[in-house]
């Protein structure tokens, strides 16, 4: 791909982020504008900020990649990512805001008055944050690799350094404006090219067979295999090969490959002709992207789909960088309104990635073969439009992609660093926050060097699964169930979140590869979430003496509108106490 415009676009986004992050929007106001200055953040602005922080590499690149490789089944991802906010709206948003908690550990302490539960929640925030950061860094590496042929690790390192620098240099000032701007940038970066791509598709006669199985090449195309892959052929294939297949060298020869699995060494070039079906890399053995989880999906599609739905529906409320944003809302009602607007904004955004996925299946099906499906969004403008226009649109998409990595990564780093500083590292102070920031970034950066295998959307799905199995029960039961006890909450989080975390670790390590067990481990939410709820309820019921004494007052504050509270809460609390007797 031509990088004349893409690199400046990425650089522009990076520099702008650093600049705005470091200096903030220095708007000084005189006293005459006092009222304006002290006006709180409105739902619309806050919602754009939440959306900006939420739409990550998984949304920007991953969904299109998965749709490209696996077809419309993958539309559950955008549906789930959006519907999570519906659950948040219905059960959590307003009470969470009224609790006055800034982070999830704060909520645990406010509700259960237990330092132990607080620390446990902190540990899970760090765990989920790291799991979520990992695909951001990988996505950055992939983007830079596609744009400039830079090594895979460079993009991740750039994002890590930029985020650490801005966060450690005094946090992100005026973060709400920055993140809101990032949302509109991301939307533009996908929307404008999408319009042109759809026009080009129309000009091409509007072919509609995108999801006819299997995908086929629309023109002669040379595919270079960068990593050694195993190809599984369902039907015989005739292809021109220059390179090594099954240990035999071919030099620009046209050969027939029978049905079965073929090993193609790296560096091999395959030339397909128009109308050839696109072979798909074998899931279990391919070391590249877009692999392991799909195997479980192919074997147990229904189970995998429900696992995904549960994880994304219930996991959103436990994402540390999302929860933090709700604190900015002035009161519970504003928090609810904000969530409604978020639903709209995110819903609008998620209409676009599937378009890229479908077009990618038509115009760049070879990406499924080389394992670079996540790059579909980046490559499509060049493939379909080409020339200067394609380059410019490609640059816009690349800039948007980096905005996605930077905004999500900085939000997550802030959240993780905050917890590390407050609950893990011994003393407090600015210097420790910097140490926390570096630590928050270093671990996923190191891990991203080690774990190479997962497509970004799947990796994010795992973070959602852990969040759904630990924080969802804590939040839902904490807000709606008066008999929750600290031991119950701790046990539930440990059992549910811990088992989900172990399942995720096993999946990332590539164990056991296939079979029912693999499906269970790759999509843990379907069993780990009920397990967490069950543990929390049973242990709480077994320890009735440990219900915090302040529970009625706390729940009254969670659920009563703020106007009623203040002087009158105590009367209400007394009534509730009387009623309990």
């Amino acid at each position, binding site marked *: 791909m031509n990088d004349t415009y893409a690199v400046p676009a990425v650089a522009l986004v990076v520099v702008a982020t650093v600049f705005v992050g470091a200096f903030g929007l220095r708007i000084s106001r005189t006293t005459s504008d006092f009222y304006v200055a002290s006006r709180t*953040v409105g739902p619309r602005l806050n919602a754009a900020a939440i959306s900006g922080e939420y739409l990550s590499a998984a949304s920007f690149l991953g969904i299109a990649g998965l749709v490209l490789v696996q077809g419309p089944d993958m539309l559950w991802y955008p549906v789930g990512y959006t519907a999570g906010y519906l659950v948040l709206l219905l059960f959590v948003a307003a009470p969470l805001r009224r609790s006055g908690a800034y982070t999830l550990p*704060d909520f645990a302490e406010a509700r259960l008055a237990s330092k132990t539960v607080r620390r446990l929640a902190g540990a899970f925030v760090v765990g989920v944050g790291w799991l979520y950061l990992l695909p951001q860094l990988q996505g950055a590496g992939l983007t830079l690799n596609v744009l400039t042929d830079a090594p895979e690790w460079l993009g991740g390192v750039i994002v890590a350094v930029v985020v650490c620098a801005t966060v450690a240099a005094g946090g992100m000032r005026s973060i709400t404006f920055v993140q809101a701007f990032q949302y509109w940038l991301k939307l533009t970066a996908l929307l404008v090219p999408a319009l042109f791509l759809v026009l080009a598709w129309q000009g091409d006669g509007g072919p509609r067979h995108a999801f006819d199985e299997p995908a086929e090449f629309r023109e002669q195309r040379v595919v270079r295999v960068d990593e050694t892959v195993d190809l599984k052929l369902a039907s015989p294939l005739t292809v021109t090969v220059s390179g090594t297949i099954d240990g035999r060298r071919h030099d620009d020869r046209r050969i027939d490959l029978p049905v079965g699995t073929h090993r193609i060494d790296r560096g091999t070039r395959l030339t397909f002709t128009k109308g050839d079906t696109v072979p798909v890399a074998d899931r279990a053995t391919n070391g590249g992207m877009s692999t392991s989880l799909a195997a479980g999906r192919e074997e147990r599609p229904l189970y995998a789909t429900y696992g995904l739905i549960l994880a994304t529906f219930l996991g959103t409320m436990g994402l540390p960088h999302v929860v933090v944003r709700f604190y900015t809302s002035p009161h519970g009602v504003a928090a609810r309104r904000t969530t409604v607007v978020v639903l709209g904004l995110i819903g609008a955004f998620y209409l676009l990635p599937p378009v890229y996925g479908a077009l990618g299946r038509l115009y760049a099906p070879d990406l499924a073969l080389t394992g670079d499906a996540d790059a579909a969004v980046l490559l499509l403008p060049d493939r379909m439009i080409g020339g200067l226009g394609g380059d410019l649109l490609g640059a816009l998409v690349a800039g948007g992609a980096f905005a996605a990595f930077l905004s999500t990564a900085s939000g997550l780093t802030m959240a993780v660093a905050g917890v590390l500083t407050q609950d893990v590292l011994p003393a407090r102070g600015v210097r420790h926050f910097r140490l926390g920031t570096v630590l928050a970034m270093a671990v996923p950066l190191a891990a991203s060097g080690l774990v190479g295998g997962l497509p970004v959307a799947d990796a994010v799905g795992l973070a959602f699964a852990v969040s759904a199995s630990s924080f969802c029960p804590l939040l839902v039961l904490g807000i709606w169930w008066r008999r929750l006890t600290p031991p119950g909450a701790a046990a539930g989080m440990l059992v549910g979140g811990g088992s989900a975390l172990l399942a995720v670790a096993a*999946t990332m390590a590539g164990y056991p590869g296939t079979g029912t067990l693999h499906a269970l481990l790759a999509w843990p939410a379907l069993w780990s979430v009920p397990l967490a709820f069950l543990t929390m309820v049973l242990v709480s019921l077994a320890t009735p003496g440990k219900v915090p004494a302040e529970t009625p007052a706390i729940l009254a504050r969670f659920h009563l509108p703020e106007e009623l509270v203040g*002087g009158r809460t105590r009367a209400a609390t007394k009534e509730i106490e009387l009623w309990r007797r």
Partner: protein
Amino acid sequence: MSGEVSGFLAGVFVAVLPLLAAGFWLGRRTARPRNSLGGLGTPVEHATFQTLHTATLAAPPLRAGLTEETARRSAKRLRTLLGTDALCLTDHESVLAWEGVGEHHRAEIMERLGGPLETGRGEAFRLTCDIIDCPVRWAVVAPLTVDDRVHGALVACAPRESAVLVRAAGEVARWVSVQLELADLDQSRTRLIEAEIKALRAQISPHFIFNSLAVIASFVRTDPERARELLLEFADFTRYSFRRHGDFTTLADELHAIDHYLALVRARFGDRLSVTLQIAPEVLPVTLPFLCLQPLVENAVKHGLEGRTDKSHISITAQDAGAEALVVIEDDGVGMEPEVLRRILAGESSPSGGIGLSNVDERLRQVYGDDRGLVIETAVGAGMKITARLPKYQPGVHPDGGIPRA
């Protein structure tokens, strides 16, 4: 191939991390001085240590007062301490916790307790029982007294009479009483802090009221509309500062009050005072002690205009800094000798008029802990910069709430 190996390594790494953390935590939890037992010399020393250790373990629950929960948790240790078959703790009405055998004597014991609870004197009596091989036949009652008032009783049961047990039960009851007295003391200390904070709760200075009314009066004829506006500002400000409920407010409300205050001050000083504001909207919902920034602004106004006739400038900024909000109030006035300031903050000398910095500093320390006091940078002639760090979340601090329990 290398991808698989590194992937596996990474998986192991991710799997081991939580285990390590859990191990670390468990290790810290279980690292009690118990393992140093082996180093003790003679059996007597060993026994002494054991007794002291058991007593120490029984103490913390009782420090929260005598309730069912605390009685249950301490009764087990107390029985170990006395070495009896059964032990129970009661208040005036009922048995709070029964530890050990023979629980069917609950009702009987409560009947027999009337006397000791009335007189506050210990007693020993035989238990009547229909069960042939009932393990407890005899009970000794030792009342628990705090400040000469009987709060309850400790009852130890045994198969037969024992003079040693009577003495021991008395001693243990006295020890428990001391713990309960400490609990009482804790409570009164909390009440004292609450009262102190209530007393510290800032009040607007009388001077300010006089000056404001004078300024408004001066506008009544020349500019009635302005006078009306100012009167409304004055009403708003006093309504805020005289409000009764809650000890906390939000930064947004506090800034509104400061706005009203500054409107009145500017009416008095006109162009001599200019104010700039930089408020990050993210920190407006932060909860903070009621009227704890307005005195700082008042202070800045006073110092800024003191002893000069030219213009003075005040800047108020509130930044978002992760889990806390950073509020800085800066003036370019006469400043202060750091040593004088230190004495004011230590409460050794009071500043001339107004409610001072020390009040705000003290309240912030009471609510957020000693490391969240005011940070003041100043020198003579160099203005003054006051920084307050307000955590976005603090247990027990919410806009409608009272003072958090220590």
